[in-house]
């Protein structure tokens, strides 16, 4: 290349030298393009392959459903879908509409359960879990669950979202005074903590983690994949 710089001439004729120079340039720039292109392809391939292959839990153990679990859908159904979730987790937030659609479609054939797994890096997650529990004490767990997920963008930015959650309780027609006290009772705190511990025992490492009929499943990517899994489960149960 150094030689070429010296050979720079003004003649435009296609002498062997200029042709060689052109060939060298073509090789050089193709190499750059190929290297950058391959980098993109390899990384895209790796990233795509790792996600579905990732096991949601460290050791697959069967989870026993508890009468204390929050249930919606057909509580008599043979098929159960349990979610370990963190209200502040963006991933859980993006699965919320998916689960809502699944509930609309499978609510009559599947039992949907929810357990708390607030992660330490999410400052408001434990409070949010307690807010849902406290609403549950007044029979409105799922309504609060929906409201919390739908407004995730708002309260997750606050330094202390307690007043916001109390506001939601008022909007849902709950007794705000009782809700406020329940938020901080040992009973409610324990309920959240028990869920989290049960998740830890089952090897849950992140959220959301789903258990189908008590067995951990790889987190389905999107609605269609999830629908397929539930359809299959319903078919083999009947």
């Amino acid at each position, binding site marked *: *290349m*150094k030689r070429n*710089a010296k050979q720079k001439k003004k003649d435009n004729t296609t002498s062997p030298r200029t042709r060689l120079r052109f060939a060298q*340039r073509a090789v*050089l*720039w193709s190499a*750059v393009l190929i*290297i*950058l292109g391959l*980098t*993109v392809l390899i*990384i*895209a391939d790796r*990233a*795509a392959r790792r*996600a579905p292959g*990732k096991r949601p839990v460290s050791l697959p153990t069967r989870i026993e459903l508890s009468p204390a679990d929050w249930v919606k859908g057909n509580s008599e159904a043979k098929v159960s879908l349990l979610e370990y979730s*963190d209200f502040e*987790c*963006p*991933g*859980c937030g*993006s*699965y919320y509409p998916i689960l809502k659609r699944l509930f609309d479609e499978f609510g009559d054939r599947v039992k949907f359960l929810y357990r708390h797994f607030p*992660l*330490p*890096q*999410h*400052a408001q997650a434990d409070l949010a879990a307690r807010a849902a529990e406290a609403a549950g004490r007044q029979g409105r767990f799922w309504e609060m669950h929906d409201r919390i997920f739908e407004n995730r963008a708002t309260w997750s930015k606050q330094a202390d979202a307690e007043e916001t959650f109390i506001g939601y309780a008022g909007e849902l027609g709950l007794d705000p005074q009782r809700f406020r006290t329940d938020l901080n009772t040992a009973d409610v705190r324990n309920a959240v903590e028990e869920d989290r511990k049960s998740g830890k025992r089952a090897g849950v*490492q*992140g*959220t*959301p983690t789903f258990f189908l009929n008590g067995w951990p499943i790889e*987190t389905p*990517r*999107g609605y269609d994949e999830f629908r397929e899994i539930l359809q299959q489960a319903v078919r083999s149960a009947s």
Partner: protein
Amino acid sequence: MNSEKFSNRPSGAPPNWILALFLVFSFMGFADSTYLTVKHYSGTPLECSIFHGCEKVTTSPYANLAGIPLALLGMIYYAAIIVLIVAHLDSRRKSIFVFAARATVIGFLASAWFVYLQLYVIRAVCPYCMLSAVVSTLLFVLGRIALRSRTSSKRGLTPAG
């Protein structure tokens, strides 16, 4: 520094080690932001783990600029630096290198802003984003070194000539 080598070159041309490091760092930055871009578009980081806080950063409203993911802008930025350095190696035109070295200030300032956002606004640190910040800072420092040795060698020449 290998000043002997340096004095053998046409005045102001950056030494090879600077060019090599430029390529290495901008390639690292390119690979890193490619990973973040792929993650952004594949929508797979739909999971929060006990171990890291990356999702909080990459899903924050600050991860986009006018609808374009920052990771993609990062890819373009690093690719542009690579192309400029290769163009310089190809043509041996100093002006191209000088342009690239000056352009690194963009990456440096942008990174400084993103690190600030991660530490004080989002309050979560994304290791891949931090790696990009480190790389663009190194590119900026390299650019400064190269530009300074260029001006000092120029200054050295003027009184002699």
